[in-house]
């Protein structure tokens, strides 16, 4: 304080502004480092999944399928924490649909139960079943699908006919192939695809086991190459990094946009409240594996990570550095305390959903009509996310970022958002 008192006020103001600019640069740079570490972890976990799938397909067995499922569940932990990097960063948002698009009309990919229905007004390819179909018409063109390759999935089937529910690649397509449809309705239990759906010769169930294996192999290979691409994009010369570091103030705005858009429109709305309001177990985010409680929990944790500038890697090490919290605390300590409290309250609410689900009260049971305990659990998460969004808006104002347009993803024109 003594030194400050000696300085002229104009000089002081200039010096303060320069220090603030430097700090914003430090915060966005650490944010990019965190993103790089999180996508690198997601890639490592996807490589483990790919190896488990390769081993299973080489010698199909119940244990092999179980190992592949376990690897998928583990891979979701780091990936879900990255979702907060999507919104506000066009590089990530343009890429993201390839790996985590949802919800999907899974009949596009493989056989489904009779109760699934047929083509819908929105999607005439909802029951295409490419695994059973070597050649078909798509938007007026004949498609040769005798070989199921990564290129076929990525270039032809993904978003076929311009319909977003035609999800051919990514975590949820793989999840469907590993678990199959969850036919338990609101009752406890996940999808129960038999390992023999991938067995050779007479052991094969539900037909086309070799093509199903080709699909699973192609989809896991693609997941790895897609993640390699995004890790590079967050590298020293990557586009995703540049998008947030080139102008630190715009970078801060992107960080907060990611936090707010994921909290409010995406997670509180599309993913949580919609399923509850529709009482529809198919509206679960990880509906085949019944892993939705974790999906929500790690999404929420990702938001908290960004504010605190901290991330625990899959090898247990803590990544830590300059944070939004530091910036806010220096401007408005009460607001920093409010923001931290609300993030912690959300994590407690999401933790309760996770705890109950792990104890056997699964997420689809929570969505059942008239299930008051389930509704209270899910709404606890929704309310926490809405409350923290209010605080995020206050942080935007406190950091003087109001001038930046706060938009969601560039998929704002997508009509499937729920709060409409």
């Amino acid at each position: 304080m003594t030194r400050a008192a000696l300085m002229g006020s104009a000089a002081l103001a200039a010096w303060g502004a320069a220090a603030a600019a430097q700090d914003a640069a430090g915060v966005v740079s650490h944010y990019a480092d965190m993103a790089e570490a999180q996508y690198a972890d997601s890639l490592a976990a996807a490589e483990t999944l790919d190896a488990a799938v390769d081993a299973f397909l080489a010698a199909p067995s119940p244990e092999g399928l179980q190992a592949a499922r376990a690897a998928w569940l583990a891979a979701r932990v780091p990936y879900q924490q990255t979702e907060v990097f999507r919104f506000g960063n066009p590089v990530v948002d343009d890429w993201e649909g390839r790996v985590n698009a949802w919800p999907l009309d899974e009949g596009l990919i493989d056989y489904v139960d009779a109760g699934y229905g047929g083509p819908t007004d929105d999607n005439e390819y909802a029951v295409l079943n490419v695994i059973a179909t070597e050649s078909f018409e798509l938007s007026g063109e004949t498609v040769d699908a005798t070989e199921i390759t990564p290129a076929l999935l990525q270039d032809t089937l993904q978003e076929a006919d311009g319909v977003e529910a035609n999800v051919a690649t990514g975590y949820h397509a793989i999840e469907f192939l590993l678990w199959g449809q969850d036919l338990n309705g609101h009752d406890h239990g996940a999808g129960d695809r038999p390992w023999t759906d991938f067995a050779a010769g007479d052991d094969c169930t539900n037909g086309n086991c070799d093509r199903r294996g080709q699909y699973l192999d192609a989809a896991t290979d693609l997941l790895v190459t897609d993640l390699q691409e995004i890790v590079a994009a967050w590298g020293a010369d990557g586009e995703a990094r540049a998008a947030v570091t080139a102008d630190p103030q715009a970078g801060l705005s992107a960080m907060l946009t990611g936090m707010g858009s994921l909290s409010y429109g995406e997670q509180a709305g599309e993913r949580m409240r919609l399923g509850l309001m529709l009482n529809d177990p198919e509206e679960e985010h990880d509906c085949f594996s019944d892993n939705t409680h974790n999906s929500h929990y790690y999404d929420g944790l990702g938001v908290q990570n960004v504010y605190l500038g901290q991330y625990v890697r899959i090898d247990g090490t803590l990544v830590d550095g300059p944070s939004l919290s530091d910036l806010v605390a220096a401007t408005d300590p009460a607001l920093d305390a409010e923001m931290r409290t609300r993030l912690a309250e959300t994590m407690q609410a999401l933790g309760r959903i996770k705890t109950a689900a792990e104890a056997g009260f699964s997420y689809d049971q929570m969505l059942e009509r008239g299930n008051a305990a389930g509704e209270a659990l899910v709404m606890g998460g929704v309310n926490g996310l809405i409350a923290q969004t209010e605080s995020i808006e206050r942080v935007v104002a406190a950091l003087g970022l109001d001038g930046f347009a706060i938009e969601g993803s560039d998929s704002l024109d997508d009509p499937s958002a729920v709060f409409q």
Partner: protein
Amino acid sequence: MRPILIALFLSLPAALHAQSGDEYAPASRAATDAVTEDAARAIVASAIDGHVLPGFDVLAAEAEALAGVASTDCIPGSEALRTAWNAAFDAWIRVSHLRFGPAETDNRAFALAFWPDTRGATPSALGQLLSDEDPVIGTETGFATVSVAARGFYAMEFLLYDDVLSAEAQGPYGCALVRAAAVDIAATAEAIRDDWRDSYAGLMRTAGDNAHYQSAEEALRALYGALDQGLEFDADVRLGRPLGTFDRPRPARAEARRSLRSLRNLVLSVESLRELAAILATAPGADAARVDAAFATALDRAARLDDPAFAGVDDPQGRLRVEVLQQAVQSARDTVRAEIGPALGVAAGFNSLDGD
């Protein structure tokens, strides 16, 4: 916004620490207030008294009238029933952008209006109730637990106008379902109006003196956000959904096309948003005439369209006219963002269309 001197004062200790390398100084670019706290409160009060409360009053009254008609006349093809439903739906569209606060509580806005319905949840939930003759609809509290896809104005549209479902709804169960839906709409509309009157309007008026709205600026931001998002929804969803892409127009995705209300809803919404914009544009520095002219242009384009369900998006000529209307709505939004946002000193917050 904190006055700039206080911001600098608070930044001092951290700035000193920053030189030693551990702490991080704040952004010192505290924005100046665009409107005074008193002026902001006055604008909020005008919006509540001139726009919000009257809108929800009309909705509650029309919804009650709908429930009254349905109690004596529940045949899907009935003109009296359709007229009452249309009047109540009109009233909802005029307030449908005010989704924060009482409309958000207990998912009331969704219970009144679940649309767009990208996975066909409404016909499937209604079909299920009808085929099961599910007794849950027998009580008001029971019906309130039903999927939002089977409640509200859009579900009633299927019951009154969809060829398949209106036929299925001819019997006694269908009659009970129509009545339950109308009574539920009335109860929901009344709950929203009462919350606004009894508590929420007060929270906005006393912004700065309560925890929910910590300043008048926050209350303004909620209203401005509703205006901005209302225009976004009109352009991107009400018009954007049926437009689809040039190669793949999607006329079947037009809002309330079965009752030929798609254009009507768009017009009612833009008219109501024009009213809210005029109130917010009383902020010093906003060019209210320019804002109003942008809305007038959009409504003029709509008046010339003569395509009630946007069915014309299928042919190049018809499509062009819907695109021109969409551009006019987008242009009204741009004008609002250029004139009103800066004058109020607020940006629109996060909205439900964020995400994917």
